[in-house]
């Protein structure tokens, strides 16, 4: 079972910036235990572009699809047996990243 694990940061109350060594160590462990599928940190939301080509002409707009105080700072994809395992790892991930984590199953 695969889960999208989102790291959520808060513009008003950002997590600490010195987490990279801890995150690397955590990633190594996810790989060793066979849970790791993908991981990536994201650039700032101001670097995002939204494309809407549902109409006659493609419209590009600058910025993320939704402006909010909280935003997606990075993602993982984990392969784990069930939600309990995902939640246990996510509980650790929240400490490691010093940020909130959302766990959402793939269909």
């Amino acid at each position, binding site marked *: *079972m695969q889960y999208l694990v989102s790291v959520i940061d808060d513009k008003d109350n950002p997590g600490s910036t010195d987490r990279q060594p801890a995150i690397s160590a955590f990633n190594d462990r996810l790989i060793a235990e066979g849970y790791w599928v993908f991981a990536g940190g994201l650039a700032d939301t101001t670097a995002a572009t939204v494309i809407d080509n549902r109409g006659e002409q493609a419209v590009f707009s600058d910025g993320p699809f939704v402006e909010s105080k909280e935003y997606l700072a990075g993602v993982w994809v984990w392969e784990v*047996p*069930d*939600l*309990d395992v995902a*939640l246990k790892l996510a509980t650790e991930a929240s400490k490691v990243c010093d940020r909130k984590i959302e*766990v*959402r*199953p793939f*269909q």
Partner: protein
Amino acid sequence: MSDVEEAITQAHHAEWARVVAALTRRFGDLDIAEEAAAEAFATAVARWPADGVPPNPGAWLTTTANHKAIDRIRRENKRDDKHKEAQMVYDDDPPEPLGVIDDERLRLIFTCCHPALAIETRVALTLRMVGGLTVPEIARAFLVQETAMGQRITRAKAKIKAARIPYRVPSAEDLPARVSGVLAVLFLVFNEGYLATGPDTDPVRHELTAEAIRLTRLIRVLLPDDGEVAGLLALMLLTEARRTARVSASGELVPLDQQDRGAWDAALVAEGHQLVRERLAAGVAPGRYQILAAINAVHTSARDVRDTDWSQVVALYDQLIRVDPSPIVALNRAIAVAELDGPEVALAAVDRLEDKLAAYHAFHATRAELLRRLGRSQDARTAYDKAIELAGNTAETAHLTRRRDQLG
């Protein structure tokens, strides 16, 4: 009630959770299990009066429900492989030796009370799947529209499936936290029954207190060595014992010190005391529910309110504050302090809680009573007004209004 009706009610109480749990295990789907169990009971209602009650009602119901589930799966033309794909995660390892009985119902309870579900969802799902209450019954109990309650339960079942919430008893490491989550759900059901909210609601909803006690008894059978389970059961029994004495004929709340103690249910008191004694004898540091049960045991041991051992009550609250340092515990401790050290000392302690409890009716009701005892009628009146404004329980509002109007 006829013998057959009684047999059906009894079978419903004894077998519903067992049937749902067994079918969930077999078919890996809560929705199929719930629907098939409901159909099996409906079949019993239709057939038992004519055919007679089968010698083993539980086995009859499980077999009938199994057939109903297979019918539904066939109807939906689910192929075997597709069906397997949809199955819930089921842990086949025998549970760790914790005195845990490998009862299917435990898996069901832990799944319904999973921390990834919202607390009101856990309550609704537990009452439906484990308690066997119908959706309209649960909706009525929580003053929610039937369709909204139906959706809540449907969404919960969908989340359990989509997010792969496992159907198993948690590992030894996670068990204490998960048991405490289950107890929180049961305590919430009990409290909503005991102090029902809503302007047009009966002040006490006996069906909810009774259901909470029944489910807690079941958990106690399943986890006999857990002190907090015993503590919660004792707390519920000792509270329920006072139920009829707690509301007057005119629908007004009667506080503990004014209750007719002869009207308390002696059998429930005795059972609650027995459980508290067992926990004391166990010699294990008690948790929150055990301490609350002990406090209630002190109250219910006094034949007259004047015989109450207040120093014991205050000592127990001191112990409770160490495991649960909440302002509500501090407020209740202050009420006991008033009996031991007088209303002035208690009022000072209560006033220190204003920041945290200003929106809680019991804070203002407690202040009002203390101010009244200190002869500060004007301040008491203001505090009663505030408490009446915030109280949600009809019996409580009636009591507070009378107390206020008695002030000179």
